[in-house]
């Protein structure tokens, strides 16, 4: 590999954005997996994809439009679960197919942005613009702060929802916070690994951590560490071997899961 490439703006930008995303995914994923809400990332990624298509169709910044659409979609999923008394996965299926239908529809009426949209389908971290890096790092730090400021409440709610409610916690506020943080993280992930693989980013590191951790603090630490190793390692591998970064990231994450699982069995 060309040494100067390592320090090229392109590469550093990818590492910076990837690092921010890794932290947010690693922490958030633990709660999503333990709440049996892992598929919410899948549903929201489709909604975010519609947001990107809308942004491109309207000639607005696609990431910003996607964040707004995805935030609205996340709140709609909660509303459907609560008010229409739908099971969580059904509400997610409604939203995800609706999102994808909207994206397909927009593509059909405005054919000239198809190629650009494809970058969000498979992700393209090495093409990330400086403004997107600031946005990604800023939002990832916001999500991380959101989790740490509400850590005890989120743990209490995830472990024992009924007791948490009787203790006076506003669970609807915490639910909203969690899905909105997921929505933001998914949009960032869409840029990096794409619609088709973003669910893996929020689920695999947390699942790996659960193989080894003995308490919650360890789980959060290991999940963040595995997420960082997967994303940063994947970016480096993609550079060195000229691979698609999204595939390299998910392969690494799966490799870490396999090793964690084996370590658990040998322990």
């Amino acid at each position, binding site marked *: 590999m060309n040494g100067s490439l390592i320090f090229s703006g392109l590469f550093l930008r990818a590492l910076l954005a990837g690092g921010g995303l890794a932290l947010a995914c690693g922490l958030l994923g633990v709660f999503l997996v*333990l709440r049996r809400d892992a598929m919410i990332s899948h549903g929201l990624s489709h909604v975010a994809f519609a947001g990107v298509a809308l942004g491109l169709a309207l000639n607005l910044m696609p990431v910003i439009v996607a964040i707004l659409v995805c935030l609205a979609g996340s709140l709609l999923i909660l509303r459907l679960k609560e008010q229409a008394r739908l099971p969580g996965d059904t509400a997610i299926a409604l939203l995800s197919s609706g999102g994808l239908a909207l994206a397909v529809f927009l593509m059909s009426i405005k054919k000239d942005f198809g190629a650009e949209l494809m970058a969000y389908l498979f992700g393209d971290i090495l093409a990330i613009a400086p403004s997107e890096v600031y946005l990604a790092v800023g939002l990832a730090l916001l999500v991380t702060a959101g989790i740490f400021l509400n850590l005890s409440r989120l*743990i209490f709610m995830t*472990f024992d929802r009924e*007791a*948490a409610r009787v*203790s006076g916690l506003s669970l609807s506020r915490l639910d909203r916070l969690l899905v909105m943080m997921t929505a933001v993280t998914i949009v960032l992930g869409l840029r990096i690994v794409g619609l088709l693989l973003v669910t893996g980013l929020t689920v695999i590191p947390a699942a790996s951590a659960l193989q080894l951790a*003995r308490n*919650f603090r360890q789980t959060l630490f290991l999940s963040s560490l595995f997420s960082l190793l997967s994303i940063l390692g994947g970016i480096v591998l993609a550079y060195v071997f000229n691979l698609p970064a999204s595939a390299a990231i998910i392969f690494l994450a799966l490799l870490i899961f396999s090793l964690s699982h084996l370590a658990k069995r040998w322990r």
Partner: protein
Amino acid sequence: MKESMKEIIRVEGVSFSYDGVPALLDINLSVHRGDFLAIIGPNGSGKTTLLKIMVGLLRPGQGRVWLFGQPLEDFKQWHKIGYIQQKATNFDPIFPISVAEVIAASLNSVSRPVKPGRRQVRNKIMEALQTVGLESEAGKPMNSLSGGQQQRVLIARALSTEPEILLLDEPTTGIDYPSQENFYDLLGKLNKQKQLTIVLVTHDYGIVNRHVNRVACLNQKLVYHGEHSEFCQSDRFRELLHGGHHLISHRH
């Protein structure tokens, strides 16, 4: 009013139905400081529903509930209330949480007039674990403990916020008999020594009757509500003793 007579919970004219099927009809009941009240009745008699209404998890179709003299809708001092739900130990077995973390999460979440500092939280956790005899298990994963020990941890969690009343719904379901006896002995001790008010939903009156001082017998309507000693002399208690299990049934 004497401190011991202070009313902690008042349930007034409460009725509740699930999708039109009545579960509770016109329940009037009160719990005073120092009471150890057992709510008993057959399966489907509305015991759990009543307890959930008392702590605000369900909203009654009719009637009202007062907590510490305040209407439940306006009540904010939730740290005064400890609650342990039915099958609370049936939590996700993959959940990676230590005994100390279970208690810390609650202690740090509950809104209190003065938020405890980190050292205070640690002391309170150890104090609560000492009360239930599990101080040496603080660092262990919750899912490595026995059902009886897990139940004690949940009691410690409830005690850590220094509640004035503990409400428990069938807390020993799925726990072996000796552990159940130890558990109820602990509740009896907390009630007598720490003046902790206890409301316990149970279908197994036999194991708790030496600790309780008041009984509410429920079968959609309140069949009996009064002193344990009077209940022991009533026809309903004799029916229980002589195998008339229409009030109490076991389905395990």
